[in-house]
């Protein structure tokens, strides 16, 4: 015996192939079907976990070491996640013991005044950092064969601007911050890349260039590495990063609507 239909389906399922948006969900009365409530709840749970799960620094350092990178771990002045979320200003400064440790250890690990330094940071998604940072570093090797000799600093409870202080202590010419972005419901593991030339405390976002949504389903590693190498070369030529440095590594794709006939007025109403 078949069960009676409870959910009113939306006879426009076809629209789901045109967008990742949650269209044509159907309804029970006016409410969401159980299936979608669970699907949404799972996505939210994954995003929440991405925010709150601590970055396993030891494991990450072990993996990076295995891959041939020289790393050091530091942490910001935000002692834990709760503080980190409430006090973004504390996430932008190194804890005093970390600053001292970095200044003391750097000379024995890496060249003085490196041309490039990398910070791998948890930001708002440790999942992104753990999943993508190492693979992205390896994708950068063709552009920077000396990358394994350059500083790679693993930072926790970190905001983007924490890289300014780290880069300043290292005397780096340029600094790339690889940091977990605020998780979206369907993208809990997006990595953001921020390039800052001549990093030092007190810079603002206007001094940086950003590459967003690095992950296999978003901007793939190889493509992100190519864009980043392009920006690094550009910043070196220009002597600075930020709003004056444009990402022309690819022509901006024209919006399809510019050239194509209007999408929604193809024919008169039936």
């Amino acid at each position: 015996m078949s069960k009676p239909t409870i959910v009113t389906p939306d006879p426009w399922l076809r629209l789901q192939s045109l967008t990742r948006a949650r269209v044509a969900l159907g309804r029970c009365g006016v409410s969401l079907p159980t299936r979608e409530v669970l699907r949404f709840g799972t996505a939210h749970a994954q995003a929440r976990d991405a925010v709150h799960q601590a970055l396993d620094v030891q494991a990450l350092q072990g993996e990076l070491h295995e891959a041939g990178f020289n790393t050091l771990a530091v942490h910001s002045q935000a002692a834990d996640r709760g503080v980190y979320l409430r006090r973004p200003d504390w996430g932008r400064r190194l804890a005093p013991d970390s600053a001292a440790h970095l200044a003391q250890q750097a000379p024995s690990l890496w060249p003085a005044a490196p041309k490039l330094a990398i910070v791998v940071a948890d930001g708002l998604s440790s999942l992104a950092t753990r999943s993508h940072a190492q693979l992205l570093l390896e994708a950068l090797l063709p552009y920077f064969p000396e990358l394994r000799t350059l500083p790679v600093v693993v930072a926790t409870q970190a905001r983007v601007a924490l890289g300014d202080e780290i880069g300043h202590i290292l005397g780096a010419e340029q600094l790339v911050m690889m940091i977990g972005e605020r998780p979206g419901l369907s993208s809990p593991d997006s990595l953001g890349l921020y390039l800052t030339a001549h990093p030092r405390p007190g810079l603002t976002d206007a001094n940086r260039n950003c590459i967003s949504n690095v992950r296999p389903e978003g901007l793939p590693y190889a493509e992100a590495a190519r864009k980043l190498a392009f920006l690094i070369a550009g910043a070196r030529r220009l002597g600075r990063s930020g709003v004056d440095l444009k990402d022309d590594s690819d022509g901006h794709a024209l919006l399809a609507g510019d050239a194509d006939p209007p999408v929604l007025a193809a024919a008169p109403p039936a």
Partner: protein
Amino acid sequence: MSYTCTLGLRRYAFGDLKNLLAKASPLRSGDMLAGVAAATEEERMAARIALADVPLARFLQEAVVPYEDDEVTRIILDDHDALAFEPVAGLTVGEFRDWLLSDAADADSLQALAPGLMPEMVAAVSKLMRNQDLILVAAKCCVVTRFRNTLGLPGRLAVRLQPNHPTDDPKGIAASMLDGLLYGVGDAVIGINPATDSLPAITALLRLIDEFREQYDVPTQSCVLTHVTNTLRAIDKGAPVDLVFQSIGGTEAVNRSFGVTAALLDEANRAARQLGRGSVGNNVMYFETGQGSALSANAHHGADQQTLEARAYGLARRYQPLLVNTVVGFIGPEYLYDGKQIIRAGLEDHFCGKLLGLPMGCDICYTNHAEADQDDMDTLLTLLGVAGINFIIGVPGADDIMLNYQSTSFHDALYLRRLLDRRRAPEFEDWLERMGIADYQGELLPQGDTQPLLALAGRL
């Protein structure tokens, strides 16, 4: 002037009105981040007790942000209507709360009073009110605006259809738009947050919606939420601009960080009105606001974020906007930490805006790093529905895939309609019935082959 309160053996003193307002404000992370919040719960109550005794007239003498330094303050004070203020001119803040809750305050008297109220007075009284007070008083207010339909009538609720797409893909946007319309959403506005600010892209999006609207004769308005200067350029190029969107805040400095001044908004308001595209009215401005924006731009002058939010409404009302939307939970946990703070802020913003005569809507929303979830949004949605909010946001499945946050869904709007018997804007309601999307009572109809929008969906 100093404000004081003695509780037991402890005497609390507050240096000025700005300080008093900040200390009296309900706890929130943004005020703590700014270092202006009360240090203890007792200090917060002492501030409220002292605030209750402050005459409303005092606010006309003591500006929270100096008149000389700030054009928002100048607009607030220069536009103040002393005659409209008359009925409450002799009251203290505490007495004003009592008056608002009394039967003397009804839809007509509140509407007449609005031009006589300063945002700071309204913020002050909100700090003495519990959530139920904010709801009850806001529910007495009625603010009606018009462009191609009539928004804010009693017993009505409108929804902004927000069909965003991460790359502005026209088919992706069209898919979300059709989904929304088939769910009976879109009377407040069909409004897209574009992924890019390039003028050709903005113009293409405007044409996308406008050609659809013309073809199907949809009694609603469209908007691409780009910077006001882009919209002015689009108007210059002859693009079909219905509404001018802009984010605004409560100080001149935060507005400067947004790249806007009152003069620029004046110009845009004039330009859009001159197009004369509205059919039943000419309210052409769409503002978005949110507590915490001034602090995040380091432009808060040491004032608390709720008072500054109310001041943004003081600027907004200069333009008789069609829509004002407080995007309450978008800014993040450093300003509104959790569901409790977001819910309180949403109710405050709606109350303050309505009392100042604005057509308030709310983007009932949160980000994934805030301590909030769908249950909190259900609570705020229900409370704002009861409070008579003019409009909410509609995103497919509550998941905005472009802005990466959670808002309210098309289903959420239907929930509120059914629960509270809230109907759509009358012109839009008639259109849905003509299109066979909803019946004469506003209930969704089953769809089949005869539905023209389904045929359109099939061709995308």
